């Protein structure tokens, strides 16, 4: 209800801006999950972030003197719905590009449509390498990619000298991809590690049946590769069963720890959890990054988080590319994006040309950290950085659960 009113006012606001600038707006499509079973909290953060960024751009006079208008479609995190949404945005709303995409399976369906209509698609938060491996020239990835945490986690496992590692992955391209990826990295870096990943249904409610065997034979490391709300259920059930975090078992987490509603849904389970973070408050931000963070805090009251920066980077690189290419024509935008070398919220963004595995059109050297919560309800800022940007995983900083 309110959500819709909000959306209504937003559009009105943008029309105002449009009239102010008296120029035809640049329509940007935003297919994201705003209702279940999608990762709604992701969708909402991305939505807020994009709206904040669009406002910053428009207040600064827009792009080529034209305002950016976001056209948001709820895809419920369902590939089928996303396909339809992207189709609608392109054919009906005639958007010049798509941003905000998250959840790999959904994006994989979306980029097919974008590719068919040859419309640039900027992937905000879909990690699956499969997206890059399609080698679609329309698709650009300022988002994290599975190989990034995979490499980081393998290093961490090695540093911990862990022998048995179990990854719990959601049944999506993101989850399964990362589950396999970690295995490959472990195989390369370390010898003699007993590794397996268990696929969980992200719509399931009760994971105990899958967890109890772990309880019987506790591994050294459990890695959670799920998205909320499933991730929250999983973390709670892992804790309540005394599986992890525990004196025997570390709990690692890849995509949930820095969500604004993390502590609302997770109690004791979150304490002493070690998480992968494409962003951490202790990271140095660019000037733009600080501006965005401030605007976001002002709008939502939430502290900045990785999705904020990923989302605004997606919109900013698009705006930048249109500026440089002096056109919204697909080919011009794509060319400009490929040539782009520009400092975003967390560092200089470039898209690799190398058509190899996860590399194509990927911002490869994106900064990331590992951090550990050392108390319940601890703000992200106070959490302890275990692996800082460009540094190795520092076991000595970890606190072992009792």
């Amino acid at each position, binding site marked *: 209800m309110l959500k819709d009113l909000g959306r209504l006012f937003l559009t009105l606001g943008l029309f105002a801006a449009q009239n102010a600038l008296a120029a035809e707006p640049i329509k940007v499509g935003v297919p994201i999950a705003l209702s279940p079973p999608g990762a709604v909290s992701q969708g909402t953060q991305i939505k807020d972030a994009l709206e904040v960024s669009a406002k910053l751009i428009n207040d600064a006079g827009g792009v080529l003197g034209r305002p950016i208008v976001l056209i948001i479609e709820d895809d419920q995190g369902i590939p089928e719905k996303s396909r339809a949404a992207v189709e609608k945005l392109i*054919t*009906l709303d005639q958007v010049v590009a798509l941003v905000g995409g998250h959840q790999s*399976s959904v994006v994989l*369906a979306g980029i097919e449509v974008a590719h068919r209509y040859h419309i640039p698609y900027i992937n905000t938060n879909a990690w699956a390498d499969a997206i890059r491996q399609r080698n679609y020239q329309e698709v650009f990835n300022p988002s994290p990619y599975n190989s990034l945490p995979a490499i980081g986690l393998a290093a961490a496992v090695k540093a911990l000298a862990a022998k048995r590692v179990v990854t719990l992955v959601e049944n999506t391209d993101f989850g399964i991809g990362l589950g396999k990826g970690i295995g490959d990295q472990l195989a390369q870096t370390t010898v003699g590690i007993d590794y397996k990943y268990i696929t969980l249904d992200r719509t399931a409610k009760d994971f105990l049946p899958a967890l109890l065997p772990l309880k019987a034979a506790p591994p050294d490391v459990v890695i959670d590769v799920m998205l909320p709300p499933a991730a929250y259920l999983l973390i709670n059930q892992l804790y309540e069963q005394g599986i992890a975090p525990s004196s025997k078992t570390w709990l690692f987490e890849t995509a949930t720890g820095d969500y604004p509603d993390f502590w609302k849904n997770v109690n004791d389970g979150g304490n002493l959890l070690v998480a992968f973070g494409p962003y951490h408050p202790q990271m140095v931000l660019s000037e733009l990054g600080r501006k965005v963070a401030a605007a976001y805090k002002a709008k939502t009251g939430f502290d900045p988080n990785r999705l904020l920066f990923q989302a605004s980077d997606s919109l900013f690189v698009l705006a930048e590319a249109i500026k440089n290419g002096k056109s919204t024509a697909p080919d011009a935008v794509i060319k400009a994006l490929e040539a782009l070398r520009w400092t975003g919220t967390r560092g200089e963004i470039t898209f690799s040309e190398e058509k190899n595995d996860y590399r194509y059109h990927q911002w490869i050297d994106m900064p990331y950290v590992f951090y550990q919560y050392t108390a319940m309800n601890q703000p992200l800022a106070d959490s302890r950085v275990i692996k800082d940007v460009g540094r190795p995983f520092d076991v000595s900083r970890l606190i072992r659960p009792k």
Partner: protein
Amino acid sequence: MRRIVDTRGRMRTDFLASLAVLAIVAFLPAVMTSDYWRGVIVVSMYFALLAISWNLLAGYTGQFSLAPATFAMIGGYTTGLLAYHFGATAVLGIPAAIVVGGVIGLLLAAIVMRLRGPYLALTTLSFAEIIRVVIANSIDFTRGDLGLNVPSLFERRLTSYYVMLAVVAGIQAGVYWLLRGPGGLYLRAIRDDEVAAAGRGVDTVRWKTYAFALSAAIGGLAGALYAHFAQFVSPELGLVSQAGLVISMVVIGGLGSLGGPIVGAVLVYVTSELLREVGGYQLIVFAILVILFARFFRDGLWGLLRSGYERRFVTSDVRTVTAE
């Protein structure tokens, strides 16, 4: 001037009227140039096929299956998997989808043959869920929840538009042909009173099996066509809520009438696209509509239109019985 119309006469009128509706749809593209809205109509034709197939089973045979969407999913995956694993084209995929759908329909018929009312509903619901869970979890074979990309059939949207329309018209004609013959009598007899039908010599087992298989085959065809149009299939196609959508279409359009399913499908789907802008109230609206129709206008929109028409042109003795 008023004429007396027997049931067959009424059926003919219904059939012609439904063709008229399709004719209107055929002329739409002249005024409706947006590719998107043409796409919407294509999808509503997909739902029309499902609605027809379910109406044949529930409306005319009284077999209240909750698995109409399941056969669409089966059809979609048949052609999708053939393409994914063996690179087969639609030319093979679509017939395969019809056959596989039909065969699984036979299987379901065998399972539910002795079941009625709530038992039938529960069993078909379980059947639907089993198929969906299996497809959604056999990740290595079906890519599970992630869905499957399916090669497109026609480059031009207008082609898909008219092909889909033609298929609907063809199926509608086929169903009409079946219903106006003795087969139609047997199915409706089974719907009204299976026990009595058997006692009068109707081979209830055989005709129920036909109904299930036919309905399932149509569902398979619909799913396959949709998959090639959308170029994507996922277990979403078989969700219980999808079945709910199909049922709503038929109930609002008119359960057990020839035209109801088509009108219901187009109306419900197009409205839901329009309401989408207003932010997802469509399902609330439809749920309420369905309850109201089931409660007060049991013959649906089509029934209302027809009784209006007959009150005007036809002597009263065959008028629909909603009045009671």
